[in-house]
């Protein structure tokens, strides 16, 4: 009798041990969802109230290339610079021109005379609308990393993330001034550019705006290189900028509103001319991955985004009231 009882106890113990080991083994298997006591949930920052989303995506079309330099728009054209090609589309997504570039493009803009300016890593070139090379400037040096161009009249502003300055040049590439250079005597702290995201744009008055991405600020400069004004909001919330190098890309509408594109948690937002948050063009849920789409705006206040992750040109229009 006693022996029988001992056997039963032993069998129960053996089964219990097997259950515990099995549960531990199966329950913690790599694919199983185990609660993370140290979880840092960033999803809450990805959420955007639907009332804050002011734009809607009206069209997108694919651009199947390995890598891009950037996007710009003019009248009825969308122009994309890839690493080695210049491609023109109409607003329906139909390709109307494709030309080879002489080097790897990093950025692109178009001026009022419909001349296409393209930044290569160390120098700048200018093409006409037919994709014919017109000008090629001298190199800004091995340290330079050109990330953005903006043209205002006879001034071409070249954002150089490598040297952390904006070169103010004439249209022949002659450097007239270095803007934003660190100067302790003048109290200029300089641009803090942790990675090659350094965008510039021109407002309706022809003044230069530069995104000081390390400090999450916009800086406005006079033609003589002096600081005119600045604004910025560092925050993880939707109305601010956070993380490394944001806003990664900027554009300015003709009413001087700012359109911003962020990396890390990709999203496109709109701010008024005073830097007050107005709303969201495209929330993080509209994007895959972490790359900031390059952006351009047109006179109809459409926002055209070059989505590097989805390999698409995406057109966003303001929702009807």
């Amino acid at each position: 009798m006693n022996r029988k009882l001992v056997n039963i106890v032993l069998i129960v113990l053996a089964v219990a041990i097997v259950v515990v080991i099995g549960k531990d083994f199966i329950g913690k298997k790599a694919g199983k969802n185990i609660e993370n006591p140290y979880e840092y949930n960033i999803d809450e920052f990805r959420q955007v109230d639907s009332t804050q989303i002011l734009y809607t995506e009206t069209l997108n079309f694919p651009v199947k290339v390995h890598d891009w330099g950037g996007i710009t728009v003019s009248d009825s054209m969308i122009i994309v610079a890839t690493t080695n090609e210049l491609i023109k589309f109409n607003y329906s997504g139909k390709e109307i021109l494709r030309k080879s570039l002489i080097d790897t493009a990093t950025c692109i803009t178009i001026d009022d005379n419909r001349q296409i300016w393209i930044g290569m890593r160390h120098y700048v070139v200018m093409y006409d609308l037919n994709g014919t090379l017109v000008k090629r400037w001298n190199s800004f040096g091995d340290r330079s990393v050109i990330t953005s161009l903006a043209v205002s009249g006879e001034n071409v502003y070249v954002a150089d993330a490598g040297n952390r300055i904006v070169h103010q040049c004439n249209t022949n590439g002659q450097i007239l001034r270095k803007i934003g250079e660190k100067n302790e005597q003048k109290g200029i702290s300089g641009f803090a550019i942790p990675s090659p995201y350094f965008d510039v744009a021109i407002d309706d008055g022809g003044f230069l705006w530069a995104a000081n991405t390390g400090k999450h600020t916009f800086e406005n400069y006079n033609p003589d290189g002096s600081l005119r004004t600045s604004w910025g909001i560092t925050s993880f919330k939707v109305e601010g900028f956070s993380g490394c190098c944001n806003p990664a890309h900027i554009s300015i509408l003709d009413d001087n509103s700012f359109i911003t594109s962020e990396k890390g948690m990709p999203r496109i937002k709109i701010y008024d001319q005073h830097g007050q948050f107005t709303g969201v063009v495209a929330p993080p849920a509209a994007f895959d991955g972490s790359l900031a789409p390059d952006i351009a705006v047109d006179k109809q206040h459409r926002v055209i985004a070059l989505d590097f992750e989805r390999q698409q040109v995406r057109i966003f229009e303001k929702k009807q009231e």
Partner: protein
Amino acid sequence: MSDNKEPKSIERRRFIRSGMQMALAVSLGGVAGISFLKATPKDLVWQIDPFKCVQCGRCATECVVTPSAVKCVHAYALCGYCDLCGGYLKPDANARSTAAENQLCPTAAIKRKFIEEPYYEYEIIEDLCIGCAKCVAGCTAFGNGSFHLQIRHNLCKNCNDCAIARVCPAEAFVRVPADTPYLIKGDFTKGGKGKKA
């Protein structure tokens, strides 16, 4: 004609002697070979591929060593702009500093050293770090991903079947040569492995 055949007993003795010599040579060669193999880079240890890590927190809870032998490291060559980025800070931090109440780190293991305005060099206090990857999650989501986890081999017991590797949901635990036991971002990516730093 003389008979050259040796007696059977001598043949057997010679056979045993040469057999023993052969066995000794083989065993000595084997020992030497094993020693050589042990001393060569083919010895493997566990390490975390930072590009596969998903910051699940299991490195802190599943390691057989307490606190975990997995620690955060800072690839300073990749990025050192933590104070500007704020990826390691709590979202509602009241200041951009490494004060304990501002850090995501539950043990305040991150310290900084002033370089020049506005740059700081960030270090991880290993004795405090528990390998929870909370700071790594913030740095990866908002920054350039210079904070990442590595198994510290001065602490690791090098279990044959790593307890964390068994439960890692991203299969980020890999075997690497013992003479190059770390996979620091920016270093091993330069070796042409085709990964983005």
